[in-house]
Protein backbone atom coordinates (compact mmCIF):
# COMPACT_ATOMS: atom_id res chain seq x y z
CA UNK A 1 0.00 0.00 0.00
CA UNK A 2 1.42 3.29 -1.02
CA UNK A 3 0.87 6.57 0.76
CA UNK A 4 -0.74 9.17 -1.51
CA UNK A 5 2.10 11.60 -0.97
CA UNK A 6 4.99 9.36 -1.90
CA UNK A 7 6.30 9.64 -5.42
CA UNK A 8 5.22 6.68 -7.48
CA UNK A 9 8.63 5.95 -8.96
CA UNK A 10 7.19 4.55 -12.15
CA UNK A 11 9.99 5.83 -14.34
CA UNK A 12 12.33 3.19 -12.91
CA UNK A 13 10.24 0.28 -14.12
CA UNK A 14 12.11 -1.30 -17.05
CA UNK A 15 9.23 -3.10 -18.77
CA UNK A 16 6.02 -1.34 -17.74
CA UNK A 17 3.07 -3.70 -17.15
CA UNK A 18 -0.45 -2.77 -18.26
CA UNK A 19 -1.84 -0.23 -15.82
CA UNK A 20 -5.50 -0.22 -16.78
CA UNK A 21 -7.17 -3.04 -18.68
CA UNK A 22 -10.66 -3.36 -20.10
CA UNK A 23 -11.28 -6.97 -21.04
CA UNK A 24 -14.35 -7.82 -23.13
CA UNK A 25 -16.40 -5.16 -21.37
CA UNK A 26 -20.10 -4.66 -22.02
CA UNK A 27 -22.22 -2.19 -20.18
CA UNK A 28 -25.99 -1.99 -20.09
CA UNK A 29 -27.99 0.57 -18.16
CA UNK A 30 -31.28 -0.55 -16.68
CA UNK A 31 -33.75 2.10 -17.67
CA UNK A 32 -36.96 0.45 -16.57
CA UNK A 33 -37.87 -3.08 -15.60
CA UNK A 34 -36.75 -5.29 -18.53
CA UNK A 35 -35.68 -2.25 -20.59
CA UNK A 36 -31.95 -1.72 -20.98
CA UNK A 37 -29.70 0.62 -22.93
CA UNK A 38 -26.55 -0.97 -24.26
CA UNK A 39 -23.84 1.64 -23.90
CA UNK A 40 -20.66 -0.34 -24.47
CA UNK A 41 -20.00 -3.61 -26.28
CA UNK A 42 -16.89 -5.76 -26.38
CA UNK A 43 -14.38 -3.16 -25.25
CA UNK A 44 -10.86 -4.54 -25.29
CA UNK A 45 -8.31 -1.95 -24.26
CA UNK A 46 -5.08 -2.00 -22.29
CA UNK A 47 -3.16 1.09 -21.23
CA UNK A 48 0.55 0.60 -20.54
CA UNK A 49 1.97 2.30 -17.48
CA UNK A 50 2.73 5.91 -18.30
CA UNK A 51 0.79 5.77 -21.52
CA UNK A 52 -1.53 8.59 -22.61
CA UNK A 53 -4.61 7.39 -24.47
CA UNK A 54 -7.28 9.66 -25.94
CA UNK A 55 -10.77 8.45 -26.75
CA UNK A 56 -12.91 10.11 -29.40
CA UNK A 57 -16.37 9.07 -30.48
CA UNK A 58 -19.79 10.47 -31.23
CA UNK A 59 -21.97 11.81 -28.46
CA UNK A 60 -23.75 9.09 -26.50
CA UNK A 61 -21.39 6.31 -27.57
CA UNK A 62 -20.47 5.46 -24.00
CA UNK A 63 -17.27 7.42 -23.37
CA UNK A 64 -18.36 8.68 -19.96
CA UNK A 65 -19.55 5.17 -19.16
CA UNK A 66 -16.08 3.86 -19.99
CA UNK A 67 -14.50 6.25 -17.49
CA UNK A 68 -17.06 5.59 -14.79
CA UNK A 69 -16.26 1.91 -15.13
CA UNK A 70 -12.55 2.62 -14.82
CA UNK A 71 -12.97 4.73 -11.69
CA UNK A 72 -15.29 2.22 -10.05
CA UNK A 73 -18.45 4.31 -9.97
CA UNK A 74 -20.03 1.63 -12.20
CA UNK A 75 -19.55 -2.13 -12.54
CA UNK A 76 -19.47 -3.68 -16.03
CA UNK A 77 -22.39 -5.90 -17.06
CA UNK A 78 -19.90 -8.31 -18.60
CA UNK A 79 -16.13 -8.59 -18.72
CA UNK A 80 -13.62 -7.06 -16.34
CA UNK A 81 -11.95 -3.74 -15.71
CA UNK A 82 -8.71 -4.10 -13.80
CA UNK A 83 -5.97 -1.87 -12.50
CA UNK A 84 -2.56 -3.41 -11.86
CA UNK A 85 -4.11 -6.84 -12.24
CA UNK A 86 -6.84 -6.30 -9.64
CA UNK A 87 -10.45 -5.93 -10.74
CA UNK A 88 -11.89 -2.48 -9.99
CA UNK A 89 -14.71 -2.72 -7.45
CA UNK A 90 -14.85 0.80 -6.07
CA UNK A 91 -12.90 4.07 -6.34
CA UNK A 92 -9.25 3.87 -5.33
CA UNK A 93 -6.83 6.47 -4.08
CA UNK A 94 -4.31 5.96 -6.86
CA UNK A 95 -6.88 6.83 -9.52
CA UNK A 96 -7.95 10.45 -10.05
CA UNK A 97 -10.96 11.54 -12.02
CA UNK A 98 -11.52 14.92 -13.66
CA UNK A 99 -15.16 15.58 -14.36
CA UNK A 100 -16.64 17.26 -17.38
CA UNK A 101 -17.16 20.40 -15.32
CA UNK A 102 -14.81 21.31 -12.54
CA UNK A 103 -17.13 20.50 -9.57
CA UNK A 104 -15.61 22.95 -7.11
CA UNK A 105 -17.37 23.34 -3.77
CA UNK A 106 -18.37 27.01 -3.50
CA UNK A 107 -18.03 27.11 0.30
CA UNK A 108 -14.33 26.38 0.09
CA UNK A 109 -11.53 28.51 -1.29
CA UNK A 110 -9.50 27.31 -4.25
CA UNK A 111 -6.81 26.11 -1.84
CA UNK A 112 -9.32 24.23 0.30
CA UNK A 113 -10.86 22.69 -2.81
CA UNK A 114 -7.63 21.42 -4.26
CA UNK A 115 -6.41 20.03 -0.93
CA UNK A 116 -9.74 18.28 -0.33
CA UNK A 117 -8.45 14.83 -1.44
CA UNK A 118 -5.71 14.99 1.20
CA UNK A 119 -8.10 16.27 3.84
CA UNK A 120 -10.45 13.37 3.15
CA UNK A 121 -7.59 10.88 3.13
CA UNK A 122 -6.41 12.29 6.44
CA UNK A 123 -3.00 13.26 5.05
CA UNK A 124 -0.55 15.95 6.11
CA UNK A 125 -2.37 19.21 5.37
CA UNK A 126 0.64 21.50 5.79
CA UNK A 127 2.54 19.56 3.16
CA UNK A 128 -0.53 19.37 0.96
CA UNK A 129 -0.93 23.15 1.04
CA UNK A 130 2.69 23.61 0.12
CA UNK A 131 2.43 21.28 -2.85
CA UNK A 132 -0.94 22.69 -3.90
CA UNK A 133 0.58 26.17 -3.88
CA UNK A 134 3.34 25.06 -6.22
CA UNK A 135 0.95 23.26 -8.56
CA UNK A 136 -1.49 26.18 -8.63
CA UNK A 137 1.34 28.51 -9.52
CA UNK A 138 2.42 26.13 -12.24
CA UNK A 139 -1.00 26.14 -13.90
CA UNK A 140 -1.14 29.94 -13.75
CA UNK A 141 -3.34 30.42 -10.69
CA UNK A 142 -0.82 32.50 -8.76
CA UNK A 143 -2.71 35.01 -6.65
CA UNK A 144 -5.92 32.97 -6.67
CA UNK A 145 -5.09 30.49 -3.93
CA UNK A 146 -7.54 32.06 -1.51
CA UNK A 147 -10.14 33.15 -4.04
CA UNK A 148 -13.51 31.42 -4.04
CA UNK A 149 -14.27 29.18 -7.05
CA UNK A 150 -16.98 31.66 -8.06
CA UNK A 151 -14.30 34.26 -8.64
CA UNK A 152 -12.55 32.08 -11.22
CA UNK A 153 -13.33 31.73 -14.90
CA UNK A 154 -14.37 28.35 -16.30
CA UNK A 155 -10.86 27.66 -17.55
CA UNK A 156 -9.28 28.62 -14.25
CA UNK A 157 -11.69 26.33 -12.39
CA UNK A 158 -10.80 23.49 -14.71
CA UNK A 159 -7.11 24.08 -14.06
CA UNK A 160 -7.81 23.99 -10.33
CA UNK A 161 -9.62 20.68 -10.90
CA UNK A 162 -6.50 19.32 -12.59
CA UNK A 163 -4.42 20.39 -9.60
CA UNK A 164 -6.91 18.69 -7.27
CA UNK A 165 -6.62 15.50 -9.30
CA UNK A 166 -2.82 15.58 -9.13
CA UNK A 167 -2.69 16.18 -5.36
CA UNK A 168 -2.81 12.49 -4.48
CA UNK A 169 -0.02 11.71 -6.98
CA UNK A 170 -2.28 9.30 -8.86
CA UNK A 171 -0.94 6.46 -10.96
CA UNK A 172 -3.91 6.82 -13.26
CA UNK A 173 -5.62 10.01 -14.36
CA UNK A 174 -9.06 9.77 -15.97
CA UNK A 175 -10.42 12.87 -17.69
CA UNK A 176 -13.91 13.30 -19.11
CA UNK A 177 -13.91 16.11 -21.66
CA UNK A 178 -12.15 18.38 -19.19
CA UNK A 179 -12.00 21.27 -21.65
CA UNK A 180 -15.38 20.76 -23.25
CA UNK A 181 -16.74 24.05 -22.01
CA UNK A 182 -13.75 26.19 -22.95
CA UNK A 183 -13.14 28.42 -25.93
CA UNK A 184 -10.61 27.39 -28.57
CA UNK A 185 -7.81 29.70 -27.40
CA UNK A 186 -7.99 28.73 -23.72
CA UNK A 187 -8.27 25.14 -24.79
CA UNK A 188 -5.07 25.25 -26.77
CA UNK A 189 -3.21 26.71 -23.81
CA UNK A 190 -4.73 24.09 -21.49
CA UNK A 191 -3.59 21.34 -23.85
CA UNK A 192 -0.04 22.64 -23.82
CA UNK A 193 -0.18 22.78 -20.02
CA UNK A 194 -1.69 19.33 -19.78
CA UNK A 195 0.95 17.85 -22.09
CA UNK A 196 3.75 19.16 -19.89
CA UNK A 197 1.99 18.14 -16.66
CA UNK A 198 1.35 14.62 -17.94
CA UNK A 199 4.90 14.22 -19.17
CA UNK A 200 6.30 15.48 -15.86
CA UNK A 201 4.08 13.38 -13.59
CA UNK A 202 4.51 10.14 -15.53
CA UNK A 203 1.01 8.92 -14.79
CA UNK A 204 -1.16 6.84 -17.05
CA UNK A 205 -3.83 9.00 -18.64
CA UNK A 206 -7.15 8.17 -20.26
CA UNK A 207 -8.64 11.30 -21.80
CA UNK A 208 -12.07 11.63 -23.35
CA UNK A 209 -12.37 14.50 -25.76
CA UNK A 210 -14.40 15.95 -28.56
CA UNK A 211 -11.41 17.63 -30.16
CA UNK A 212 -9.55 15.55 -32.71
CA UNK A 213 -6.46 17.70 -32.75
CA UNK A 214 -6.20 17.73 -28.96
CA UNK A 215 -6.65 13.97 -28.88
CA UNK A 216 -3.75 13.55 -31.29
CA UNK A 217 -1.60 16.25 -29.74
CA UNK A 218 -1.71 14.75 -26.24
CA UNK A 219 -1.81 11.01 -26.79
CA UNK A 220 0.41 8.04 -27.50
CA UNK A 221 -2.66 6.34 -28.89
CA UNK A 222 -6.07 7.53 -30.05
CA UNK A 223 -9.06 5.23 -29.66
CA UNK A 224 -11.93 5.91 -32.06
CA UNK A 225 -15.33 4.63 -30.97
CA UNK A 226 -18.45 3.75 -32.96
CA UNK A 227 -21.92 5.10 -32.20
CA UNK A 228 -23.95 3.36 -29.50
CA UNK A 229 -23.37 0.68 -28.45
CA UNK A 230 -19.80 1.92 -28.29
CA UNK A 231 -17.21 -0.40 -29.76
CA UNK A 232 -13.64 0.37 -30.63
CA UNK A 233 -13.55 1.25 -34.34
CA UNK A 234 -9.80 1.80 -34.56
CA UNK A 235 -6.74 2.41 -32.44
CA UNK A 236 -4.26 4.80 -33.97
CA UNK A 237 -0.71 5.03 -32.67
CA UNK A 238 0.65 8.55 -32.43
CA UNK A 239 4.44 8.31 -32.80
CA UNK A 240 5.03 12.06 -32.50
CA UNK A 241 8.14 12.89 -30.45
CA UNK A 242 7.95 14.20 -26.88
CA UNK A 243 8.01 16.67 -25.30
CA UNK A 244 5.03 17.90 -27.26
CA UNK A 245 4.82 21.65 -27.66
CA UNK A 246 3.89 24.33 -30.16
CA UNK A 247 6.27 22.85 -32.72
CA UNK A 248 4.34 19.58 -32.63
CA UNK A 249 1.25 21.45 -33.75
CA UNK A 250 3.04 22.71 -36.84
CA UNK A 251 4.52 19.34 -37.88
CA UNK A 252 3.10 17.81 -41.08
CA UNK A 253 2.88 14.37 -39.38
CA UNK A 254 0.57 15.92 -36.84
CA UNK A 255 -1.83 17.12 -39.52
CA UNK A 256 -1.69 13.72 -41.26
CA UNK A 257 -2.59 11.89 -38.05
CA UNK A 258 -5.47 14.29 -37.37
CA UNK A 259 -6.78 13.59 -40.85
CA UNK A 260 -6.61 9.89 -40.23
CA UNK A 261 -8.78 10.22 -37.14
CA UNK A 262 -11.10 12.60 -38.87
CA UNK A 263 -11.75 10.14 -41.72
CA UNK A 264 -13.80 8.05 -39.31
CA UNK A 265 -16.27 10.87 -39.02
CA UNK A 266 -16.47 11.81 -42.64
CA UNK A 267 -18.25 9.00 -44.43
CA UNK A 268 -21.05 10.87 -46.15
CA UNK A 269 -24.36 10.31 -44.40
CA UNK A 270 -22.81 8.38 -41.53
CA UNK A 271 -24.06 8.99 -38.05
CA UNK A 272 -20.57 9.82 -36.89
CA UNK A 273 -19.92 12.49 -39.47
CA UNK A 274 -22.34 14.96 -37.99
CA UNK A 275 -20.86 14.82 -34.52
CA UNK A 276 -17.48 16.26 -35.47
CA UNK A 277 -15.97 19.26 -37.13
Amino acid at each position, binding site marked *: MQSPLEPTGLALDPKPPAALVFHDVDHEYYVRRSATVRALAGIELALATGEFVSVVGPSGCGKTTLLRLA*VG*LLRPSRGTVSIGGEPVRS*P*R*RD*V*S*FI*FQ*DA*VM*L*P*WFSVMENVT*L*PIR*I*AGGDMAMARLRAGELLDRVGLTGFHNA*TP*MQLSGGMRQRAAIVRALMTRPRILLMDEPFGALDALTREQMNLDLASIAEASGCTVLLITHGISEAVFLANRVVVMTPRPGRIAEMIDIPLPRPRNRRTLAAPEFAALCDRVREHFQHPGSEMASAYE
Partner: protein
Amino acid sequence: MQPPLSMVSRLRGQANRAVMPALAIAVLGLWELMVVALKVSPLVMAKPSDIATALWTGFVEGLYWTHLAATLTEMVSGFLIGSALGLVCGLAITEFGRFGRLLFPYLVAIQSIPKVATAPLIIMWLGFGLQSKIVLVTLITFFPVLINTISGLSVVDRMRTDLMAVLLANRWQTFLLVRLPSAAHQIFAGLSVAVVLALTGSIVAEFAGAQRGLGVLLLQAQANLDTAAMFAVLVLLAIIGLAATMAVRGLERRLLYWTERRNEGDPT
Protein backbone atom coordinates in the same frame (compact mmCIF):
# COMPACT_ATOMS: atom_id res chain seq x y z
CA MET B 1 -16.75 60.42 -17.22
CA GLN B 2 -19.10 57.96 -15.55
CA PRO B 3 -18.56 57.28 -11.86
CA PRO B 4 -18.01 53.58 -11.06
CA LEU B 5 -21.13 51.53 -10.64
CA SER B 6 -20.52 50.69 -7.00
CA MET B 7 -20.39 54.43 -6.22
CA VAL B 8 -23.63 55.06 -8.06
CA SER B 9 -25.41 52.39 -6.10
CA ARG B 10 -23.88 53.62 -2.85
CA LEU B 11 -25.11 57.14 -3.57
CA ARG B 12 -28.50 55.77 -4.42
CA GLY B 13 -28.45 53.83 -1.15
CA GLN B 14 -27.72 57.03 0.76
CA ALA B 15 -30.53 58.82 -1.05
CA ASN B 16 -32.90 56.02 -0.07
CA ARG B 17 -31.76 56.20 3.51
CA ALA B 18 -32.67 59.88 3.52
CA VAL B 19 -36.00 59.41 1.74
CA MET B 20 -37.31 56.65 3.95
CA PRO B 21 -37.52 58.59 7.26
CA ALA B 22 -38.97 61.56 5.41
CA LEU B 23 -41.66 59.35 3.93
CA ALA B 24 -42.43 57.83 7.33
CA ILE B 25 -42.77 61.29 8.90
CA ALA B 26 -45.05 62.41 6.06
CA VAL B 27 -47.32 59.39 6.46
CA LEU B 28 -47.51 59.80 10.23
CA GLY B 29 -48.26 63.50 9.84
CA LEU B 30 -51.02 62.81 7.35
CA TRP B 31 -52.47 60.12 9.65
CA GLU B 32 -52.50 62.54 12.60
CA LEU B 33 -54.15 65.27 10.49
CA MET B 34 -56.82 62.94 9.11
CA VAL B 35 -57.80 61.63 12.55
CA VAL B 36 -58.10 65.21 13.87
CA ALA B 37 -59.75 66.73 10.79
CA LEU B 38 -62.31 63.96 10.25
CA LYS B 39 -63.03 63.79 14.01
CA VAL B 40 -62.57 60.00 14.04
CA SER B 41 -63.62 58.45 17.33
CA PRO B 42 -60.56 57.49 19.46
CA LEU B 43 -62.16 54.05 19.82
CA VAL B 44 -61.80 53.43 16.11
CA MET B 45 -58.45 54.99 15.38
CA ALA B 46 -55.69 56.35 17.58
CA LYS B 47 -53.53 59.32 16.66
CA PRO B 48 -49.82 58.67 16.19
CA SER B 49 -49.13 61.18 18.96
CA ASP B 50 -51.33 59.21 21.38
CA ILE B 51 -49.60 55.97 20.40
CA ALA B 52 -46.23 57.61 21.01
CA THR B 53 -47.40 58.80 24.42
CA ALA B 54 -48.68 55.34 25.28
CA LEU B 55 -45.33 53.82 24.30
CA TRP B 56 -43.44 56.43 26.29
CA THR B 57 -45.44 55.98 29.49
CA GLY B 58 -45.38 52.22 29.03
CA PHE B 59 -41.61 52.17 29.14
CA VAL B 60 -41.08 54.97 31.65
CA GLU B 61 -43.62 53.73 34.16
CA GLY B 62 -42.24 50.23 33.74
CA LEU B 63 -45.49 48.60 32.61
CA TYR B 64 -43.88 47.04 29.53
CA TRP B 65 -40.77 45.46 30.94
CA THR B 66 -42.17 42.34 32.57
CA HIS B 67 -44.53 41.71 29.66
CA LEU B 68 -41.81 42.27 27.10
CA ALA B 69 -39.49 39.96 29.00
CA ALA B 70 -42.15 37.24 29.15
CA THR B 71 -42.95 37.36 25.44
CA LEU B 72 -39.29 37.48 24.42
CA THR B 73 -38.44 34.55 26.70
CA GLU B 74 -41.24 32.45 25.24
CA MET B 75 -40.38 33.38 21.71
CA VAL B 76 -36.62 32.96 21.90
CA SER B 77 -36.51 29.77 23.96
CA GLY B 78 -39.33 28.17 21.98
CA PHE B 79 -37.59 29.09 18.73
CA LEU B 80 -34.24 27.75 19.87
CA ILE B 81 -35.66 24.48 21.18
CA GLY B 82 -38.04 24.01 18.25
CA SER B 83 -35.52 24.69 15.52
CA ALA B 84 -32.80 22.64 17.20
CA LEU B 85 -35.21 19.71 17.45
CA GLY B 86 -36.36 20.28 13.86
CA LEU B 87 -32.77 20.26 12.64
CA VAL B 88 -31.79 17.16 14.59
CA CYS B 89 -34.92 15.22 13.63
CA GLY B 90 -34.50 16.31 10.01
CA LEU B 91 -30.93 15.01 9.96
CA ALA B 92 -31.97 11.76 11.62
CA ILE B 93 -34.86 11.21 9.24
CA THR B 94 -32.79 11.80 6.10
CA GLU B 95 -29.81 9.83 7.36
CA PHE B 96 -31.90 6.79 8.23
CA GLY B 97 -33.30 6.61 4.74
CA ARG B 98 -36.32 4.40 4.27
CA PHE B 99 -37.99 5.17 7.58
CA GLY B 100 -37.75 8.89 6.78
CA ARG B 101 -39.33 8.50 3.37
CA LEU B 102 -42.25 6.67 4.97
CA LEU B 103 -42.64 9.38 7.58
CA PHE B 104 -42.38 12.40 5.30
CA PRO B 105 -45.99 12.49 3.95
CA TYR B 106 -47.33 12.35 7.52
CA LEU B 107 -45.05 15.18 8.54
CA VAL B 108 -46.28 17.31 5.67
CA ALA B 109 -49.86 16.51 6.71
CA ILE B 110 -49.17 17.53 10.32
CA GLN B 111 -47.37 20.62 9.04
CA SER B 112 -50.59 21.79 7.40
CA ILE B 113 -52.57 21.65 10.66
CA PRO B 114 -52.50 25.10 12.24
CA LYS B 115 -50.52 24.40 15.40
CA VAL B 116 -51.79 27.54 17.15
CA ALA B 117 -55.13 25.77 17.37
CA THR B 118 -53.63 23.51 20.03
CA ALA B 119 -53.00 26.49 22.32
CA PRO B 120 -56.11 26.02 24.53
CA LEU B 121 -55.31 22.34 24.94
CA ILE B 122 -51.68 22.93 25.82
CA ILE B 123 -52.64 25.59 28.34
CA MET B 124 -55.14 23.24 29.87
CA TRP B 125 -52.36 20.67 30.28
CA LEU B 126 -49.49 22.89 31.32
CA GLY B 127 -51.08 25.89 32.97
CA PHE B 128 -50.87 29.65 32.57
CA GLY B 129 -47.12 30.06 33.04
CA LEU B 130 -44.25 30.39 30.59
CA GLN B 131 -43.95 26.65 30.17
CA SER B 132 -47.09 26.20 28.09
CA LYS B 133 -46.10 29.07 25.79
CA ILE B 134 -42.65 27.71 25.23
CA VAL B 135 -44.12 24.32 24.36
CA LEU B 136 -46.48 25.86 21.82
CA VAL B 137 -43.74 27.95 20.22
CA THR B 138 -41.51 24.86 20.09
CA LEU B 139 -44.27 22.95 18.35
CA ILE B 140 -44.87 25.74 15.87
CA THR B 141 -41.21 26.33 14.97
CA PHE B 142 -40.31 22.64 14.85
CA PHE B 143 -42.14 21.80 11.64
CA PRO B 144 -40.91 24.39 9.15
CA VAL B 145 -37.32 23.73 10.21
CA LEU B 146 -37.87 19.97 10.05
CA ILE B 147 -39.49 20.03 6.61
CA ASN B 148 -36.88 22.37 5.17
CA THR B 149 -34.03 20.36 6.62
CA ILE B 150 -35.43 17.18 5.11
CA SER B 151 -36.10 18.65 1.70
CA GLY B 152 -32.75 20.49 1.65
CA LEU B 153 -30.83 17.34 2.49
CA SER B 154 -32.83 15.23 0.05
CA VAL B 155 -31.60 17.19 -2.94
CA VAL B 156 -28.65 15.23 -4.23
CA ASP B 157 -26.16 16.93 -6.50
CA ARG B 158 -24.86 13.96 -8.46
CA MET B 159 -21.64 15.68 -9.48
CA ARG B 160 -20.74 16.56 -5.91
CA THR B 161 -21.59 13.15 -4.49
CA ASP B 162 -19.67 11.47 -7.32
CA LEU B 163 -16.70 13.66 -6.47
CA MET B 164 -16.94 12.53 -2.86
CA ALA B 165 -17.21 8.89 -3.94
CA VAL B 166 -14.15 9.22 -6.16
CA LEU B 167 -12.22 10.81 -3.28
CA LEU B 168 -13.25 7.87 -1.05
CA ALA B 169 -14.99 10.15 1.43
CA ASN B 170 -16.87 8.30 4.14
CA ARG B 171 -20.48 9.02 4.96
CA TRP B 172 -19.72 11.56 7.65
CA GLN B 173 -17.25 13.46 5.46
CA THR B 174 -19.73 13.55 2.59
CA PHE B 175 -22.36 14.85 4.96
CA LEU B 176 -20.19 17.53 6.51
CA LEU B 177 -18.28 18.68 3.43
CA VAL B 178 -21.06 18.50 0.84
CA ARG B 179 -24.57 17.64 1.91
CA LEU B 180 -24.96 19.98 4.87
CA PRO B 181 -23.52 23.06 3.13
CA SER B 182 -25.64 22.25 0.07
CA ALA B 183 -28.77 22.17 2.26
CA ALA B 184 -27.86 25.17 4.43
CA HIS B 185 -29.71 27.72 2.33
CA GLN B 186 -32.93 25.74 2.47
CA ILE B 187 -32.55 25.19 6.23
CA PHE B 188 -32.21 28.93 6.72
CA ALA B 189 -35.39 29.47 4.72
CA GLY B 190 -37.09 27.27 7.32
CA LEU B 191 -35.54 29.26 10.16
CA SER B 192 -36.79 32.59 8.74
CA VAL B 193 -40.31 31.21 8.59
CA ALA B 194 -39.96 29.75 12.08
CA VAL B 195 -38.76 32.96 13.71
CA VAL B 196 -41.85 34.88 12.58
CA LEU B 197 -44.09 31.99 13.65
CA ALA B 198 -42.38 32.01 17.04
CA LEU B 199 -43.66 35.51 17.73
CA THR B 200 -47.13 34.71 16.44
CA GLY B 201 -47.17 31.57 18.55
CA SER B 202 -46.26 33.27 21.77
CA ILE B 203 -48.91 36.00 21.30
CA VAL B 204 -51.64 33.50 20.47
CA ALA B 205 -50.64 31.35 23.44
CA GLU B 206 -50.90 34.42 25.65
CA PHE B 207 -54.35 35.18 24.27
CA ALA B 208 -55.39 31.68 25.24
CA GLY B 209 -54.45 32.28 28.84
CA ALA B 210 -51.47 33.92 30.51
CA GLN B 211 -50.42 36.13 33.40
CA ARG B 212 -47.77 38.11 31.55
CA GLY B 213 -46.83 38.96 27.99
CA LEU B 214 -47.57 41.42 25.22
CA GLY B 215 -50.62 39.33 24.29
CA VAL B 216 -51.95 39.93 27.80
CA LEU B 217 -51.30 43.65 27.42
CA LEU B 218 -53.27 43.66 24.17
CA LEU B 219 -56.24 41.97 25.84
CA GLN B 220 -56.09 44.42 28.76
CA ALA B 221 -56.02 47.39 26.40
CA GLN B 222 -58.96 45.92 24.54
CA ALA B 223 -60.91 45.52 27.78
CA ASN B 224 -60.19 49.19 28.60
CA LEU B 225 -61.20 50.25 25.07
CA ASP B 226 -57.74 51.85 24.84
CA THR B 227 -57.03 51.88 21.09
CA ALA B 228 -53.79 53.83 21.44
CA ALA B 229 -52.40 51.25 23.88
CA MET B 230 -53.26 48.45 21.47
CA PHE B 231 -51.48 50.22 18.64
CA ALA B 232 -48.51 50.79 20.92
CA VAL B 233 -48.21 47.03 21.54
CA LEU B 234 -48.54 46.38 17.81
CA VAL B 235 -45.64 48.75 17.24
CA LEU B 236 -43.57 46.77 19.75
CA LEU B 237 -44.48 43.52 18.03
CA ALA B 238 -43.50 44.92 14.65
CA ILE B 239 -40.13 45.94 16.03
CA ILE B 240 -39.54 42.54 17.63
CA GLY B 241 -40.54 40.71 14.46
CA LEU B 242 -38.30 42.85 12.31
CA ALA B 243 -35.34 42.52 14.66
CA ALA B 244 -35.74 38.73 14.84
CA THR B 245 -35.97 38.38 11.07
CA MET B 246 -32.92 40.56 10.61
CA ALA B 247 -30.99 38.55 13.18
CA VAL B 248 -31.69 35.30 11.32
CA ARG B 249 -30.79 36.91 8.02
CA GLY B 250 -27.59 38.33 9.48
CA LEU B 251 -26.62 34.92 10.81
CA GLU B 252 -27.29 33.38 7.41
CA ARG B 253 -25.17 35.95 5.65
CA ARG B 254 -22.40 35.27 8.12
CA LEU B 255 -22.47 31.49 7.98
CA LEU B 256 -23.36 31.10 4.31
CA TYR B 257 -20.77 33.55 3.05
CA TRP B 258 -20.52 31.78 -0.30
CA THR B 259 -24.11 32.30 -1.46
CA GLU B 260 -24.29 35.02 -4.04
CA ARG B 261 -26.10 38.09 -2.87
CA ARG B 262 -28.04 39.51 -5.73
CA ASN B 263 -28.97 43.20 -5.86
CA GLU B 264 -26.16 44.01 -3.49
CA GLY B 265 -26.17 47.72 -2.67
CA ASP B 266 -29.32 48.18 -4.69
CA PRO B 267 -32.37 48.05 -2.47
CA THR B 268 -34.83 48.89 -5.23
